[in-house]
């Protein structure tokens, strides 16, 4: 299953490698889309329970980033 994650908050450069590492740890595939200091888009591919797990991990993220919200849409 593939979904689009729209992550918003106070983001910085540490988020991309962090997301990459977490995706590998749980076995989902990630494609990065457009991003700014306040929002980032991802395509995430995996079974529904792992997409949920990806959302859980990303809601915390690395310590210097604040994730306000993650909106998920089917692709």
């Amino acid at each position, binding site marked *: 299953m593939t979904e689009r994650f729209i992550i918003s908050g106070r983001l910085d450069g540490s988020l991309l490698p962090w997301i990459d590492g977490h995706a590998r740890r749980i076995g989902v595939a990630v494609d990065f889309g457009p991003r700014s200091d306040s929002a980032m888009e991802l395509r995430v591919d995996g*079974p529904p329970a792992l997409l949920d797990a990806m959302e859980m991990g990303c809601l915390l993220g690395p310590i210097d980033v604040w994730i306000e919200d993650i909106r998920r849409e089917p692709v």
Partner: protein
Amino acid sequence: MSSNWTPVALSQDVLPGMAIPAHLQDQDLVVWRSATGRIAAWHDRCPHRGMRLSHGFVRGEFLSCIYHGWRYGEDGQCRKIPAHPELAPPAAIKVPRFAVCESAGVVWVAPEGETSEPVDLPGFRGFRSVAVNAAADQVARDVAGQGHLGGCDVVMLVQPLPGGDCGLHVLVADGCADAQLDALSHAIEALRRRLEQGVAA
């Protein structure tokens, strides 16, 4: 000992269905044996939320974490997440493993991928393991060359433990009589006390 292998337990102390904590230098391990007798040595940490797997339970060929029941197969891979029963866990979720081998009644552990074999000790089998409150290198010096204890032929292996203690694994020669094994047990206890008091063995 110049081998890449470290003795961490005696085979007889890890019965089928048991999981115990062990150490390789400063790393915490879980050593466990499946129902069919297969021994394994893994990092003592569940990938879910960091609970020690050495507190887990063995069912059949699987080790499960005691906290949320995440279940792992012999290859270290997660096979089931009970809170989400419909999920087939991906291969990515797995517990890092160590190389493990049993010989002479001893469980030996090495970093994953080790290709050599532990030192060969023909004619000896693991008898008793004791924890000694003394430094490993001092104990190793004290017992070096000592092939006889309590009237039996023995091999003594010293394993460094975190916190400055060490493990002493005593192997006894095959064919030693039961009465002599009793004497050996007492002698091991006396040796441990002497080592802890810093008196030369």
